[in-house]
């Protein structure tokens, strides 16, 4: 694919003579550009190919956009010359609601942000409140949180791998295998928390309930048995597959400096070779006690982003097994730290953790009342999406679909 010739906007010298003085790519997305009169195909003359430019709108209801999300693309033949993400179809007023709710009542709402990784959302919010109110979780709770958080990461990455391959057009099989494993993990989580997706399990200074030894043993048995087999199988099925390599290697390259400037975080950033993982940088919770590697990519292409997830899952399994080995006895909830009726002293706090998708942060201001004065979410999906256009310019339309898939977004988090 010839990036150089297509990524710059084609000249429109001849178009000046055209009757209607339309801008070359009037994308009819109201906040991002002027609306076109017809609303349908917009034609402009392209010097180089004497072809037509086609504006197409992907989504907001299409499986390829992973939710209610719309991409407006201008195509020159098959090549994307302009692309605008359009957000906001799922807006639920999350942040404003957060300011009218008590601190505890926000926990179930955070489940709904990134509904594929509720556990880590709970954790990030609870972490921020603990910072604000000066609560220290108990030792056993910290270990259990690491176990659950890493399990959440695995569940998220399993989904991503499946959906990404589905975006590639592998029909169904890898997705089915991925969802099968996810179901098995959800069975375990349902037994523990009572719900399959909206766990509402973290409390300030602890967890809602303790975890039984039997449950942990079954989780261990699963991770070492069926799940290890899944990882090997998926590796054999995909990692060396010629079609996958041809489709993903060299597409959607993300340069490290662009990624850093745009605030890109998570596995996508590490695929570009930037060694930045909040678990290592911030050492929140007890991550400094575990021995694990942060995988890094080289090229920053779609393949590297895919591989990052595969490698991270193996690392997460390692962390979980270590945490289970070292799990201390003791109370899971500090009896002094109460969840209900929490009134932190006036002040502010920003708590962030490494979510499966990147840095998830909660910024809270307290004025001493039972609900936050200001409640703000820094969602990884939203910030990662902002450079979608840079990744897609010069790629074919089919590639933009997998590039979007490899960014790993959940729209609940994008449109809070």
């Amino acid at each position, binding site marked *: 694919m010839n990036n150089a010739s297509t990524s710059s906007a084609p000249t429109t010298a001849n178009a000046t003579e055209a009757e209607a003085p339309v801008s070359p790519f009037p994308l009819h997305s109201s906040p991002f550009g002027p609306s076109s009169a017809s609303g349908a195909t917009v034609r402009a003359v392209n010097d180089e190919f004497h072809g037509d430019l086609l504006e197409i709108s992907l989504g907001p209801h299409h499986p390829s956009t992973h939710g209610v999300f719309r991409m407006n693309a201008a195509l020159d033949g098959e090549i994307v010359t302009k692309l605008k993400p359009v957000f906001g179809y799922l807006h639920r007023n999350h942040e404003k609601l957060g300011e009218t*709710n008590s601190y505890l009542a926000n926990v179930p709402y955070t489940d709904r942000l990134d509904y594929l990784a509720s556990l880590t959302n709970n954790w990030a919010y609870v972490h921020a409140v603990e910072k604000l109110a000066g609560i220290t979780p108990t030792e056993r709770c910290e270990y259990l949180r690491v176990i659950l958080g890493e399990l959440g990461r695995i569940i998220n990455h399993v989904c991503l791998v499946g959906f990404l391959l589905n975006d590639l057009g592998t029909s169904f099989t890898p997705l089915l295998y991925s969802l099968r494993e996810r179901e098995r993990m959800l069975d375990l989580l349902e037994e523990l928390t009572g719900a399959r997706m909206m766990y509402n399990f973290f409390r300030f200074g602890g967890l809602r309930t303790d975890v039984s030894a039997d449950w942990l043993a079954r989780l261990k048995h699963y991770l070492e048995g069926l799940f290890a087999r899944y990882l090997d199988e998926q590796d054999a*099925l995909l990692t060396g597959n010629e079609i996958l*390599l041809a489709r993903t290697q060299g597409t959607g390259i993300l340069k490290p400096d662009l990624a850093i400037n745009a605030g890109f975080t998570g596995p996508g950033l590490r695929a570009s070779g930037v060694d930045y993982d909040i678990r290592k940088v911030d050492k929140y919770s007890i991550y400094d006690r575990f021995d694990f590697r942060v995988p890094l990519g080289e090229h920053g292409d779609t393949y590297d982003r895919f591989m990052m997830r595969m490698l991270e899952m193996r690392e997460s399994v390692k962390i979980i097994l270590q945490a289970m080995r070292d799990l201390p006895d003791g109370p899971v909830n500090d009896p002094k730290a109460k969840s209900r009726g929490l009134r932190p002293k006036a002040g502010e706090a920003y708590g962030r953790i490494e979510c499966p998708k990147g840095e998830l942060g909660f910024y809270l201001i307290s004025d001493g009342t039972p609900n936050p004065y200001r409640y703000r979410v820094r969602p990884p999906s939203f910030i990662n999406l902002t450079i979608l256009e840079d990744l897609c310019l010069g790629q074919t339309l089919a590639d933009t679909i997998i590039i979007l898939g490899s960014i790993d977004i959940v729209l609940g988090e994008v449109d809070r």
Partner: protein
Amino acid sequence: MLGLGILKGFYITAKNLVGSYFTTERLTTLEYPEVRAKLPPASRSFPFLVYDGDNPVDGLRCVACRICEKECPPQCIYIVPERDEKGKVMKKPRIFDIDYSVCMGCQICVEACPFDSIKMDNIYEIAVRNRYEPLLMHREQLSKPNTYFHEINPVDAIEVDTRLAEEKRKAEERAKAAAAAKAVAAAKAAAATPAAPADAAQTAKSAPAPAPAPTPAKPTTPETK
């Protein structure tokens, strides 16, 4: 080598396909309406109200303290306490509605209730023809016997029952002590009439009922429990 990855892929899918006929471990689906998944005891969908004994109205444990109403994040619980003929608030709900179309099954009401009177159900087939009224569950629909709770979540139900029995025993002991104190106070009052007020104030602190006054016992506020 070109093509090897694809062949490998075929091999793995074939293995999975054939394997699913032989190993149950590879089978993960159920033929739903006929076969149902066994729900774990902790599984939760919507709340219901627990009643003891046979009467779904009088047996309700709920005292209409409205704590759950206040704590519910999407505010989908509506409670109006019962009033007697004189208009005095009674410890019973006249209206207790939960809007199932708003409820998000978060279990915070269950955690908040100090009287163990609201618990999580595990029903999931609640389809109705209209989105509004039929999903607004009233007190009658929400009341379910304690035996039902034992059925769906035996572990928690037994724990709750023992705790409630313990509390009841303690309350009875306290009542007995209060009655004894009252008798002593009454005896003292009979002996020396002006000495009563100081003692009465003391006993009132430990006992739920104000000791010497002839007024009816004040209902204990939930906060003191």
